[in-house]
């Protein structure tokens, strides 16, 4: 029996008026790399939380696929620990029935026969669990396994079609433009693009999605959202954590440029700068993102500087000493990997021509904060006496992604004294304080959308390639220059002083 995997506006009349009018079809989700951290810490806890919110059908089934020899029960117990530790909701009565739908399949990722055996196992589960032949595959493995898994799924006849089979590919999708194009070719030989969900978990964050609502559900911003009123935009994703035990992976992945800028920050840039889509649908939204991505190019600061790369040295964070990048566990002491990138980008279109977008991200920075800040131009004529600094503070609109999610607008107000004296004040909207409900984890939202067949928050083949094209000039330059331009910054600081040289015309990085 074949049934569509597509989530439907319910034909079930009992769904009318309930908070979730759409539910995924019964399906088996096979996770490749099931013994890894991502499965235990994120995927299974997110699925459990979805089940607890009654957002999954009772037949929903998970198969963990990995090389290690676990029994179903051993695997369930591992997952139980993950749920107890990382789930948004506490482990409760639901675990009893939820865990009955979790199975383990031992196999190699490059062994075709194992994939054929998996196919037989899934058929058996179909009849036991009522999953009707609907399949979902999640690649939670190292990127080097993506191509072999996809090829084996195809060769074993498991790729199905748009109606009943889907594939999730974790980031990173390639390590440069060429490898991303190659991987897209492999994917497209086996799967239709409508079956493919390239994940960037940043897009699952409520506050990232709120950027679209903020921009396109309010009429007051649109007239200001262009080069006539915006002086420049700063996008910051700062972390206090170091590479910790991910050193070799982080080095292999190419550091902050590939790990953060090419995906998370470029996605934030695209959502900030894109034109309004004609509808909130997967392809209309992604069409607009691709359009703006194609218009972005690396910009030049004063002295021709385009970007700054740096690596942290030892320092102090929250009163604790922290090691230098090269002293982190399993890190090569001569490694040139950049843990910090600051770069200037320009967008060559009518809306943004001349407006620089400054992006920065780094590990072991002073504070964990992610935000998009739009600084507006100064008033054309200073009517009031200026401040001691000689000018008014420009208006600033800040979209805070994390923590303290919300939006703030800075503007000038008259102080209640006899003279005309002004002071900057902030008007704040706190996401948490206004909507006093726990936001779902990013993976919950993305897994649910994936199971419902909504691709809006997933990156399309052309989108991921366009994002690689943007950073390709920096990759190429730095590969030629090697260590020559690597800067250093103290852990716990706001990055290298060289980053300030990217700024021109009196602009400066925000102090966060």
């Amino acid at each position, binding site marked *: 029996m074949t049934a569509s995997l597509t989530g439907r506006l319910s034909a*079930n*009349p009992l769904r*009318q008026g309930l908070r979730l009018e759409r539910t995924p079809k019964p399906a088996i989700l096979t996770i490749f790399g099931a013994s890894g951290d991502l499965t235990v810490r994120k995927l299974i806890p997110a699925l459990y939380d979805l089940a607890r919110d009654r957002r999954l059908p009772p037949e929903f089934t998970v198969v963990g696929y990995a090389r290690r020899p676990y029994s179903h029960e051993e695997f369930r117990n591992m997952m139980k620990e993950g749920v107890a530790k990382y789930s948004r909701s506490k482990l409760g009565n639901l675990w009893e029935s939820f865990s009955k739908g979790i199975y383990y399949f031992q196999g190699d990722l490059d062994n075709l026969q194992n994939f054929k055996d998996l196919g037989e196992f899934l058929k058996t589960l179909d009849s036991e669990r009522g999953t009707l032949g609907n399949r979902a595959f999640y690649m939670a493995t190292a990127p080097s396994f993506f191509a072999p898994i996809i090829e084996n799924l195809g060769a074993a006849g498991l790729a199905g079609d748009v109606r009943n089979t889907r594939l999730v590919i974790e980031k990173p999708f390639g390590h440069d433009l060429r490898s991303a194009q190659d991987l897209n070719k492999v994917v497209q030989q086996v799967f239709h693009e409508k079956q493919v969900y390239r994940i960037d978990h940043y897009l699952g964050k409520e506050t990232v999605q709120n950027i679209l609502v903020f921009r396109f559900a309010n009429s007051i911003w649109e007239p200001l959202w262009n080069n006539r009123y915006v002086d420049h935009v700063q996008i910051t994703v700062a972390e206090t954590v170091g590479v910790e035990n991910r050193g070799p992976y982080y080095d292999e992945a190419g550091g902050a440029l590939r790990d953060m800028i090419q995906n998370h920050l470029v996605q934030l840039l695209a959502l900030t700068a894109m034109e309004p889509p004609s509808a909130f649908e997967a392809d209309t939204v992604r069409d607009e993102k691709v359009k703006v991505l194609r218009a972005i190019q690396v910009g030049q600061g004063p002295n021709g500087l385009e970007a700054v790369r740096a690596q942290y040295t030892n320092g102090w964070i929250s009163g604790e000493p922290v090691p230098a990048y090269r002293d982190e566990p399993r890190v090569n002491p001569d490694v040139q990997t950049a843990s910090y990138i600051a770069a200037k980008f320009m967008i060559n279109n009518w809306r943004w021509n001349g407006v620089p977008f400054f992006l920065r991200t780094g590990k072991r920075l002073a504070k964990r904060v992610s935000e998009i800040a739009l600084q507006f131009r100064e008033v054309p004529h200073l009517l009031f006496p200026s401040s001691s600094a000689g000018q008014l503070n420009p208006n600033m609109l800040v979209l805070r992604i994390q923590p303290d999610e919300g939006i703030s607008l800075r503007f000038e107000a008259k102080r209640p004294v006899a003279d005309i004296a002004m002071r900057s004040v902030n008007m704040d909207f706190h996401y948490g*304080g206004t909507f*006093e409900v726990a936001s779902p984890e990013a993976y919950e939202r993305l897994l649910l959308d994936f199971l419902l067949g909504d691709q809006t928050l997933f990156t399309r083949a052309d989108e991921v390639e366009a994002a690689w094209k943007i950073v390709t000039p920096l990759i190429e330059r730095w590969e030629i220059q090697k260590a020559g331009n690597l800067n250093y910054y103290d852990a716990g600081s706001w990055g290298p002083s060289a980053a300030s040289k990217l700024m021109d015309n009196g602009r400066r990085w925000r102090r966060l």
Partner: protein
Amino acid sequence: MTENASVVAIAEPSRVQVSQIDKQLKTIWSSQEGATRASTFNLLVYESELQDPNSIGEAIGAIAVQHPCRAIALLASTDGPKDNLEAYVAAYCPVSEGGGRESICCEYITLRASGKALDELDTTAAALLLPELETFLWWKGPLNIHLELFTNLQHIVDRTVVDSSLFEEPEKALESYTSLALGQEKNRSFGDLNWSRLTPWREETAVAFDSESRAACLGALDRVIIEYGQSEGIPLNPCQAYLFLGWLASRLGWQPLSLHNKDLTKQIIMRDSTQRPIQVTVRAVAGEAHLAGQITSVGLRSEEMGAACSTVLCSSDSSSCIRMQMNMGEATLSLVSDIDTLTTEQLLSEALRTPDRDPIYEESLEVIHDLMQLK
């Protein structure tokens, strides 16, 4: 200062002259540096025979965590002087996770009245409402729609929230209530905390029929058994069971044909759009006090040939989980779901999210209204 886990009172309730309420509130706010006075709606709360003005203040404080509002408590005093009116004002701020006070706070006014002053309390309340904001009335306690104050308040509120689990003479009150709620003008609405308590039951029932194969069973259902708790010393209250039946019947297009009472059991016959009969049993079963009036199990079956499907939903003893078992021919699927037991304040907060009419709720009330006519 009064403190609990979620709010802090920035000013204890203090007694003032009714004419001085606004002035006193301004004094409170001007003394609080950094506290922002905010209101998203007016909330009137009626309660009878309240002993301590602080207790309702705490309830309102809990609501303020989610909804900054101007809250006006209307307390019917039974022990004070005749035709008396007292007023108190206070302000609350939500407390953040780190223990600090949030900057957005709300205010509440208490009006305690007796005799004629109570009957006319709507005029005093009306003068205290913030303009151009929606006004909600939470009628906390048994409902008497013929009470003068209740009738008068209907002219100044956009939405009235009741709790049918507290109805005295439940079936009679439910009949009056459905007539009132269904006869309202389009811009006024009613809500019931007991309806919000049903949400997990409605969701769990919907889950049982999501898949296409089981959805087919919906059209073949011909037997429904709804059980609710009863406990010694607590009056029988089948309102929640009726609300569930009203919801199920309205979604499936069933109309009630007959209702017979026998001891603690009601036998109801309904018909679907094809005139096919559906037999419904609503019965009380002995249980613990906290389950009194709460649904404890729902059984949905079809005995039609070729449609061998049945679903049973049972709450566990703790009322914090629902156990669902679905039989489709020989296959059986069971699921245990956890349910958060919501406090009254959380239920109320849900009811305050919007003043809009809920068509699903109203269609459920229509079935109950028709059913009550068959008594």
